[in-house]
Each structure stands twice: as C-alpha cells, then as structure tokens.
C-alpha cells in the first residue's frame, strides 16, 4: 500500500472522518458536509494559503491553522466553529474590507460575490477603520475583454495562478508589494490568452469583470439553464444566463469528461453571434424574381410542390441536400431522410466545400474512439496536423495538464505553427499536401520497416526525414496507451483513412485515436448519415454526390434542386456557384444576406439556443441541449419544417 492510499481517521467538529492520508483539513471537512469559508483556495488551482479565511483550530495546537493547506493528521481533533475560529474569521473579514470600496450596489459581482457572502456570514457588521482607504484609478483594462478594479481586489491570486498553472500563458503578475500590491499584466506581455475569461469566473470578488457583461444585469435577474457550448468540436458544458429573452453570458459548468470546468474565450464570449435584431422572422418565397414574405402554409406548400416537380421532371438524381456539421444530429438525420426517403436521392452531404465521406469511413473503421480522459492517462501523444490550441481550445488545456502534471511526452507533426509544438518532446513540420507520404513513413517507422524510399523525395521537400521521425518516436516513446490525434480535415480521401488505420494498428491494441473536428457536430453529422454513402449509424448505402460535387453539378445545371439545412454554416461563394445553374434553391437561414437571399424559398430558422438537439463532440460524446430562448417572430426550428415537408410529400 502506498503512502497516498493509506486511510487515516480524525475528528472534525465532533464528527469522525476517514480520508486518505495527505488530505487537507478543508477537503476532509467537505467530505462530511462541513463547509469552511475560503477566498484564495480553489479546487483546481494549487494551494496558496494566503487569504487566511479558512483558519481552524486543532486541539492542543498553539494557534489556528489554515484548513486549505494543513494535512489532516491521524487522530487529531479539529474545530471549525469555536469562538477562536469565529473571531479569526471576523478579524480576517475586517482586514479584507478596510481597503475595499464597499460598492456592492454598483458592482457586477453583487449577489454572487464570496466577499459579500462571507461578510454577511462571518464579518463584524461594522468596521472600526476610519482612515483613508487605498485608492486606485479604476477600472483599468487588462485586455479588450477584461477590466480590473484594483480597489475591489483581495489579492487572492486565483487569476495569476490560472495563468501560471492552467493556461500556462503567464500573463498576469503581482506588481509592487505589501498594501500596494496589485494584479497587473506582466511587464512586456499582453493578456491575450484564449482562456482569459476564466480569470473573471475565478475571481471571488468584483475585481475582474468582462466588458461584455459589465453593468448589463444582476445575477438574481437572470435565468440559468444548462447548455452545451456550440462553438467548436469540444462541446463544453455551460450555464446559459438569460434575461428578457436575451443571452447575457456563458459560465462554465464543470464536466470532467470534457472541460474540467474551464471555457475558452471563443465559447464564453461567442454568444453575441447568435443575437442581433436583423433576424429573419417570416418565410420568403421568390415571386416574379423577388423574395416576398408569405405564410408558413404557403412556403411549405411551395417547397413541396417544387421538390416534387424537380424529382418528377429530372429524376431523383437531380436533387441534393446539404446538412451541416454545426447542426444537431436530429436535424442532419431529418435532412438525409428527406433526401433519401422522401425524394429517393443519394445526394447527401454535410458540407458544400468538403467531402464528408472519408471521415465517416474513418469512424466506420473504428477510428475516433478516444475520450478526453484518455489524454490524462496516455503514455504518449502523437498529433498529426492537429492544432487544438486554435480549433479545440479546451483540448489544449487538457494536453497541457498532461504535460505539466504527468510530463506526458507529445510528438507533433504539423504543416503550420501550433502552440502545442512548444510542449512537445519533438515537433516536426511537413509540407501541406504531403500527408499521404507522411503517414506511410510514420507507419514504416512505427513498424521499424526499412522500405520507404519511394516517397522520400516528397518528404524531403517538406523538410522531413526518416531519421527525424525515428527520433520523434523514440523521444515520445510509444506505449500501450498512446493517443493519436488526427486533424479530421486531413482525411480527404479513403487512402488516407486506411493509412491512419494501419498506423494505429501498428501501435498495438491499446492505442486510441481521436479525429479532431473543428465543428460542433462534425462527428454527429456523420453518424447521423448526412454524408455520401452512409445511413445513420454508419450503415453503408449507395453513394451519391458529395457536397463539392453537388456544387459543380448545380453550376452545370445537372443538379436541379438543392436543399440547404442552414445557410450560415456554409461558404457563401459555394452557395453562389450552386445558385448559378440550379433551378431550385431552398434554404433555412437566420439572416437574409446575399447568399440566403439568392434562394427561391428561405425558411426563417431557429438558432442553436432556440431549439432542442443532440451534438456529438470530437471525442464521440453525444450531449443534448434544450432551448433557452424562443425563436423570433415566426422563425421555426428546422426539424419541424422538414418533418412537415416529408409528411406532405407522402400525400
């Protein structure tokens, strides 16, 4: 039995508690339902022990000790509620407040502030401090997104520790000393981390505030509903705070399987994209060349009639549908059923610019099985063309955690600069386009095969060599629990898919593979069957045209009708090209812009926050969301519209 797993028993406030040796008093107390007030302590940061709010008494001890940083020793008797402890809390509170501006009525934190709550619970009620308070200019911007009020700051250093320990961007520091100490952006640095917003959420007082939320709402005015962040393939858990039909902010909602309780700024501050007053609120149908607002009844009837006519006039092969890697699995499923079942066409994909099939093949072949928690346990990590710091930010934090806390070796191979290269034991650059050669060489190196000459010239052009690959594999050290992370967008054809499969097979049974999708439901759109050649559940079916093929066919007028699930998720230029030759363009859209305005029928859509749906993250985790807002005007969730069209097409 190791030292860590040994159990010890002690008494806290008269209750017996048994915990692993080495457990701090605070955590031990928590485990039996005793809460000790804290400021600087945070379960996901290192222990600071500086605020002194958590002082408790140990029987026989000469003075109170901090519960956050004192290990519970076997047999000790701890008290968290003696007159000495309560007096210590009163004194700490009084000291914390002598320089605090006490501006709760105008402070955004009011109502969810630890300082306020603890002052009510433990503070002296009135202050004896009659001197002049320490004054600072305020607020001062730390970045475009975050403001600092130094008068409210209690110097708990949670923000500094986050930047030092979690994001490892180290942008914040304490300047000056003693009573003049202040949090600041470190000299010669900028607070431009993609994780900066976490410091606002960590701040136990109103010192750090987001520009996007400042003076916008009080905590008690908002409804809080659980949601899933829709802005990348990670699917972090969030709490969505709304007031009067508007989203006010996102807050993290800890999910150890995904986000560890953190959010990236793209997710946290991304909700603005969904709002705006320019939303489409009525169905539009083209009449004499102009889009005019019509009733839902008329719009749907027109769609049904025109789709039916296209099929009967040109055959099912002249009709196609485009789902979306940003739409829910249910919506993608309905879209493919509309095309395959109702219109009997095989032309289904989830993108206008990329063939969605190869990644679906990869999933069907058993790749894409990793979970985020695999990173925590990995022997080593091999990253191919992946840049999670940019495209799956929360995964970046998880990778850093593995490197910082476990020294997990990483080997990165990429065609562009990525932040993870700094954490890698070895990082190599290849020339974009040479992925196939790279995969062959990598597999040969893993298998320790000598035959690789045929494509060495291709690699040399990219600056790679067998020696460099061998060195990288050697330094990373492949093990039974190696995780291979592959940028899903590199899987442009079947050959690459089988090469990745061969590579992973060469590593042994325990290796797991992650396909990194940058979209919220790149995984789910494929398992929902919105790709050529696959039905839901990745059951094979006849292969129709891919998205890019449909664009070309539409441009040449061989594809006559195109149904686009959500216009905003697709490239405007591709929509415009398809428009040129297509007779019928139907789309759902949030806004009326040039591309959606080129449609013949435009359905006002519901945003991701206005409907229910399931999203499968890049690690294959399916998560459902519920609506937090109502769609504006007559806008409707896409699924109800497609269902109605399918129903009418049966008649």
């Amino acid at each position, binding site marked *: 039995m190791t030292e860590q797993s040994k159990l010890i028993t002690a008494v806290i406030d008269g209750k017996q508690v048994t915990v692993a040796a080495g457990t701090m008093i605070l955590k031990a107390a928590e485990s039996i339902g005793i809460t000790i007030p804290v400021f600087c302590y945070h379960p996901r940061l290192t222990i600071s022990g500086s605020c002194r709010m958590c002082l408790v008494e140990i029987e026989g001890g000469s003075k109170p000790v901090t519960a956050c940083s004192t290990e519970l020793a076997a047999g000790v008797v701890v008290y968290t509620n003696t007159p000495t402890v309560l007096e210590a809390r009163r004194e700490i509170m009084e000291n914390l407040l002598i320089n605090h501006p006490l501006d709760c009525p105008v402070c955004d934190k009011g109502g969810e502030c630890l300082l306020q709550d603890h002052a009510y619970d433990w503070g002296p009620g009135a202050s004896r401090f009659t001197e002049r308070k320490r004054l600072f200019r305020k607020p001062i911007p730390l970045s475009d997104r975050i403001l600092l009020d130094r008068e409210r700051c*209690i110097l708990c250093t949670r923000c500094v520790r986050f930047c030092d320990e979690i994001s490892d961007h180290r942008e914040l520091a304490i300047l000056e000393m003693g009573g003049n100490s202040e949090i600041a952006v470190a000299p010669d640095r900028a607070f431009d981390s993609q994780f900066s917003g976490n410091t606002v959420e960590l701040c136990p007082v109103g010192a750090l505030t987001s520009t996007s939320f400042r003076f916008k709402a009080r905590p008690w005015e908002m409804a809080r509903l659980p949601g899933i962040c829709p802005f990348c393939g990670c699917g972090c858990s969030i709490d969505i705070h709304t007031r009067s039909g508007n989203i006010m902010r996102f807050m993290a909602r800890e999910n150890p399987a995904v986000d560890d309780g953190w959010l990236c700024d793209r997710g946290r501050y991304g909700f603005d994209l969904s709002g705006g007053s320019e939303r489409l609120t009525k169905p539009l149908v083209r009449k004499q060349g102009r889009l005019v607002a019509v009733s839902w009844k008329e719009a749907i009837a027109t769609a049904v009639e025109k789709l039916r006519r296209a099929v009967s006039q040109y055959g099912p092969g002249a009709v196609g549908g485009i789902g979306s890697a940003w739409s829910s699995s249910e919506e993608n499923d309905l879209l493919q059923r509309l095309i395959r079942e109702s219109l009997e066409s095989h032309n289904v994909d989830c993108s206008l610019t990329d063939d969605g099939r190869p990644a679906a093949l990869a999933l069907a072949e058993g790749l894409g099985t990793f979970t985020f928690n695999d990173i925590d346990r990995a022997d080593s990590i091999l990253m191919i063309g992946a840049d999670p710091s940019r495209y799956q930010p929360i995964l970046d934090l998880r990778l850093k955690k593995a490197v910082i806390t476990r020294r997990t070796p990483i080997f990165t191979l990429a065609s562009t600069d990525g932040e993870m290269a700094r954490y890698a034991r070895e990082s190599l650059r290849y020339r974009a386009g040479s992925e196939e050669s790279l995969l062959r060489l990598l597999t040969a190196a893993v298998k320790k095969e000598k035959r690789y000459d045929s494509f060495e010239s291709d690699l040399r052009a990219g600056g790679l060599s067998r020696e460099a690959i061998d060195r990288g594999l050697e330094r990373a050290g492949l093990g039974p629990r190696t995780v291979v992370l592959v940028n899903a967008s590199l899987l442009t054809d079947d050959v690459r898919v089988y090469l990745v499969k061969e590579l992973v097979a060469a590593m042994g049974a325990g290796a797991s593979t992650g396909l990194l999708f940058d979209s919220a439901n790149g995984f789910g759109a494929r398992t929902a069957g919105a790709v050529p050649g696959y039905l839901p559940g990745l059951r094979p079916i006849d292969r129709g045209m891919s998205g890019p093929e449909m664009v070309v066919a539409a441009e040449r007028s061989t594809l006559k009708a195109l149904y686009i699930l959500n216009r905003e998720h697709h490239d405007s230029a591709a929509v415009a090209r398809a428009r040129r030759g297509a007779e019928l363009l139907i789309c759902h859209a949030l806004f009326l812009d040039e591309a959606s305005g080129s449609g013949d029928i435009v359905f006002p859509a519901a945003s991701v926050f206005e409907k229910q749906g399931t999203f499968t993250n890049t690690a294959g985790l399916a998560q459902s969301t519920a609506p937090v807002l109502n769609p504006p005007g007559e806008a409707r969730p896409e699924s109800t519209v497609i269902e109605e069209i399918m129903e009418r097409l049966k008649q």
Partner: protein
Amino acid sequence: MEKMLFKRIDVPNAADITVAEKHGAYSQVGKAFGIKPEDLVNEVKRSGLRGRGGAGFPAGLKWELCARVPGDVKYLLCNADEGEPGTFKDRFILEQDPHLLIEGMIIAGHAIGAQQGYIYLRAEYPKAAGILEKAIEQAYAKGFLGKNILGKGVKFDLSVHGGAGAYICGEETALIESLEGKRGQPRSRPPFPASSGAWRKPTVINNVETLANIPFIVALGAETYAKIGEESAPGPKLFAVSGAVNNPGGFELPMGTTLREIIYTHAGGIKDGKQLKAVIPGGASTPMLTADHLDVKADFNSLMAAGSMLGSGAVIVMDDTACMVNVTAVLIRFFEHESCGKCTPCREGTGWLYKVYRRILSGEGKPDDVDLLLSICESIRGKCFCPLGEGAIQPVLSSIAHFRSDYEQCVNGRGCGREEQCRKVLH
C-alpha cells in the same frame, strides 16, 4: 574571552586570502574532510550550536534533517540578507573576514552533502558583494573551492546571489523563491527546505554567523566549544549595539552576557549622561524591554523568559528623551513597507497600524486608539503566513505594555510639547 568570530577582524587586509591564511583561515578544511559527513553532523549537534539568524534552531539538527534525505543534489544557502533593523553583525564578517564564512560553508557542504552553495546577500551591502566575489575567486584559485578541494575529491561550488532589497527575503522560504528568480514571497511549510528547498531539492539555510562558528567547532571539538557561553546555547555571540550609547558597534561576547554588560561595559553606556528608557534586545521585531530588564542575560532562553527574544542580537538602545509612540511608529512604517502582501492580516493589518500611528502623530489621536492598536495586533497575531506579521506587532504590543503613558499623553490631547517634531516623523 579570546575572540573567535572576530579573530581576524582587526587584522589589516584579512579579506585577502594570503593574509587570512597566515592567520588561520582554511586551516580546518583538511581536518573536516578527514571526518565522515555523518560524524561531522553529529559533532555540530553535540556542540549545541543554535542558529544565529534569530530563531535559534539547533544547527546540527537542521543539517541532519537535510543530510538524511536521499538525493545527489542538495544546496547550502547562506542567509546574508541581514535586513532586521538594527542588525549589522554579519556585515563585519562579510566585509572584513569573508574567508571565515567560506571556510564554514565548505565544511558545511561536506557535512550535508551539498556541492553547491549560494550566499544570498542583501542588496544594501554592495561593498560586501565585491569583497565576497573577490574572496571566492581567491578561494577557487587556491583550490579551496571547485571540483577537487585539497585533492581530496570533495566538490563544492560557491557563488553570491544579490537580493533586491526586500526584508521578506530574509525569511528562508522567500529567500529560496527569490534565489530561484521568483517574486520574494514565503512558501507554505511543510515541506520544509531540509527536504524540499531550492529548486525543490534538500536545502540547508544558515545565517552567516552560524556558518562562521563551524571552523571553530571543528578546531576545538564539540566538547570544548560547548563550554563557551551558556549551556542552553553555547558559543560566542555577536551583538550589534546601536542607538543612544557612547560606543555603538559590533561586539563578540559569550552567549549569555547581560544586557547591562553589553550596554554599559562594551557600548560605553548611555550618551550625554542620560538614562536608559528602553532597549530592543534582538532587532526591530523583538519586544522592547526596560531598564528593569538590564540584568537579563542575552541568550535565547533568558530573553524569552523576560518576554522578549534574542533575535539577531541587534541591541537598540533608547534614552529617556525618546517618545515610544514615535519610535514604534517608525518601526511600524518599516514593517508596513516590507510586508510582502501575500497574506491578509499582515498586508492589511500593518497598513492599518501605520495609518493609526500617522494619525496619532499628526495630533488627531483619540482615547480609543490605544485599544484599537492592541486589537489590530490581535487580528494579526497567530494568523499570518510567515513570521513577518508576528514580528511587526511586537513593538506595538511591548511599547504599549511598558510605556502606555507615552501613548496616553498623545491620544488624550494633553500634549508633550514636542508635537512639531512628531509631525515630521511620518510624512
């Protein structure tokens, strides 16, 4: 008593290695290398040597804790951040006999298994920095430092690391943080430096004077050494006497010499025929004593029993014209300025104390202020991250305990006729 620590203090140019060697420097290195490290640790334990930085922790025990931790990389740090107001005892050794310190460090390094030493030197000693650098260079040239000292296969490298002027860096864990290039703030203990110190390796941190004692323990043997001074704390002790005395300066005296002897025999008594009003026996953070305490022996236990501390041995003397409100205000200004800001009670509490003193000295004192000061001290006492805050309240508590009438004169608006002078003290 024959001088030991100050043996070469009056020898001209003793900072030069040739002169120092002629007067016995490095004579104990060879002998020490002939003793097994664990025996050397035991020798220091048996000598009874207690740390001279202030806390008086048994030096041998500290060494043993570190020596026992397995590991190839260990560090020996010399705390030369002599920042306690009133203290200037180590400076004599640093500037006038650096080779005594270096010799002590070589022997200590051998005992605990450290092959790298650092002298953490306070920024305010630029002269000592140059002298130490030169002395270390000479010691390397003579083969007392380096890969193979005296051809005996012992390795010990030594360099000077300059502080940046913060009092807190005299606290051992803050010193380590600063040495590592970080912000000088104390670390949580445990782990203690003996098991996880500089760069998380086992580390011993000793004061300059502590290390300077080592060659004499080797030379005399533990038994003979232990006969010097007090039984509870053997050895010679350096005292730095300042304030209202005729002959301020540094004195090497046996541990346990009375305050009276230190002040009246060695420091020449009170200036201008005045009377002693108060004495701070061990630096600014040790409680003040009065003329009633002059027969207390200056050693760890005796001063503790008298309600104060030996501290660093910095004896600050005040005569009967001193206003203790005024004196304490100046000390509090120091602690408020030097609080590192890490923990709440010290950061906020010392600032509050300072503001109250400022107000009292500016003539705005209120009768309740004395009790308020005591209450603020209570809010700091026993609640701080490191000893700084605890030390900061000692002058307040002791000055009010012994000289409450000085305060009452101030806060009751009776005045003492010297208000103009007070107003200038804190500006």
